[in-house]
């Protein structure tokens, strides 16, 4: 509920000021992205002349080609493309499996309650909030023992385990408001545990599936801590490769290549956000903020 009066729709000086402030912040928020994009299309010579805010005088896609296929990361000079595919290999199974587990957990914790279900949920939920530094040392050892150190499969396991908390939270809150009567009616008709889930709850779960997939996708894609701790070599995700490219290069810094690489790392989550961000916010806000 806004305190604006109906008369406020007309353009008064106060309204002009309001729009001016909002636009000012919009420019402020867009500026870094604009600078990243324009820098990635400039030649290095043009960058060194200064004026970050100017459009490229001479547009070039060479920085993008170099970032994708030939920039040196560590000793290998084949760009970020391999790491980009590593990230995809990590994200897809991690999102699917943690999402499925979360959906089942939410279903059990709301529709098949047992004594102590609140404690179980509390214990799962707390795992969302732990600082991951507390698990880095033992996880490194366990991945070593399982022969999963420095592999994308190892990172998939890590992301599944520490993703369960949020996926369970999302599905549990969503299913909590799903009418129990429908479940009970299906039970009386003789439907079992899985039948009720797949026939009745899952088809109604699209909004929360969208939220969960976007949340997990962005979290896993953007992860750096797990990647740098458990897979720093060839199986590193794109974020680790980007950081290595930007912060360990010697000699002249190729800012245009760095920005192109940063854009490559940013594009998947930006696309997901632009396409589905609206549904994400709607779903997230209805579940997480009360009052």
């Amino acid at each position: 509920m806004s305190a604006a009066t109906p008369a406020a729709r007309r353009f008064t000086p106060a309204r002009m000021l309001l729009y001016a402030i909002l636009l000012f912040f919009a420019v402020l928020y867009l500026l870094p992205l604009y600078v990243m994009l324009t820098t990635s299309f400039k030649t290095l010579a043009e960058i060194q002349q200064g004026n970050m805010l100017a459009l490229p005088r001479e547009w070039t896609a060479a920085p993008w080609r170099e970032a994708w296929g030939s920039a040196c990361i560590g000793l290998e000079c084949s760009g970020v493309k391999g790491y980009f595919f590593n990230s995809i290999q990590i994200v897809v199974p991690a999102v699917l499996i943690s999402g499925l587990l979360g959906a089942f957990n939410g279903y059990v914790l709301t529709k098949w309650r047992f004594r102590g279900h609140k404690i179980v949920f509390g214990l799962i939920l707390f795992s969302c909030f732990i600082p991951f530094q507390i698990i880095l040392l033992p996880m490194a050892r366990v991945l070593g023992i399982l022969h999963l150190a420095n592999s994308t499969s190892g990172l998939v396991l890590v992301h599944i385990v520490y993703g369960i908390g949020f996926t369970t939270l999302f599905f549990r809150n969503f299913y909590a408001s799903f009418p129990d009567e429908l479940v009970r009616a299906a039970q009386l008709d003789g439907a079992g545990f899985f039948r009720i889930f797949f026939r009745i709850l899952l088809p109604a779960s699209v909004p929360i599936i969208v939220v969960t997939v976007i949340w997990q996708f962005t979290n896993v894609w953007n992860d750096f801590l797990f990647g740098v701790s458990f897979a720093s070599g060839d199986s590193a995700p794109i974020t680790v490769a980007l950081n290595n490219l930007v912060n360990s290069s010697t000699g002249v810094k190729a800012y245009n290549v760095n920005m192109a690489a940063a854009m490559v790392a940013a594009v998947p989550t930006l696309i997901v956000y632009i396409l589905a961000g609206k549904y994400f916010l709607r779903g997230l806000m209805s579940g997480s903020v009360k009052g």
Partner: protein
Amino acid sequence: MSDTAAPPGKGARERLQRWLPKLVLSPSCVLILFFVYGFIAWTSYISFSNSGMLPEYTWAGLRQWSRLWGSWTWGIALHNIWVFGLLYIVSCTLLGLLLAILLDQRIRAEGALRTVYLYPMALSFIVTGTAWQWFLNPGLGLEKTVQALGWESFSFNWLIDSNMAIYTVVIAAVWQATGFIMAMFLAGLRGIDGEMIKAAQIDGAPAWKIYLRIIIPQLRPVFLSAVVVLAHLAIKSFDLIVAMTGGGPGNATAVPATFMYSYAFSRNEMGIAAASAVFMLAVIAALIIPYLYSELREPRS
């Protein structure tokens, strides 16, 4: 729904149906128990041992803890997380609330503006750090651009100034998270009951007074959620600092998360690293457990 759901006694199939829910839940429980609570226990034990490069299980009492508190870098890290956390939480909350209130005035292009304020949230901290590191680059970035525009004495070298570098991280972090906080406040504003506001408007109260006296007090739960979310993000912040300053210049922007990482993986001081991780967990637990407890208890009343 409860255990009584399945009617008693129809043989094996019924018994299976009775156990199925718990069976389906159990893999997650086993994973969480082992990888979360087991690991917490292991790390906590290691913080009381002599472990260096390899874990060692003999009890060493508080040796690692006193080494941690005696460490100069840890002192800097604690100081930085205070400065960073406080500025980050206060700036994001105030700016988020301001943007939400401004956007709540029946703005024409609300959807587009919301998208603009929110998109940084979709980016990885590494991308944000890379972008801002370039943006604030003293030689070629903002400084040179402003100079080229005519203000020749303009200087902005916070990124390489060890007293100021932590503030550049605050700027980038606030840029990234404010949109999300704004969205939380906007959802809160839309949920406020309009009756009292209408009454105040009829009484002729000015808009700022309505916000201060009626609307903002009703947003208390959102303030609480925002502060908890931000404090939690601040304590965990690692990526942004690594990407922007690498903890430097020197140790100037070290925080507990980067301290823990460097002692664990570069300095091979497992014991101190474990102690610092346990400390981080304790702070977050003190913050999160009361919050979760109050959130989970609510539906019953």
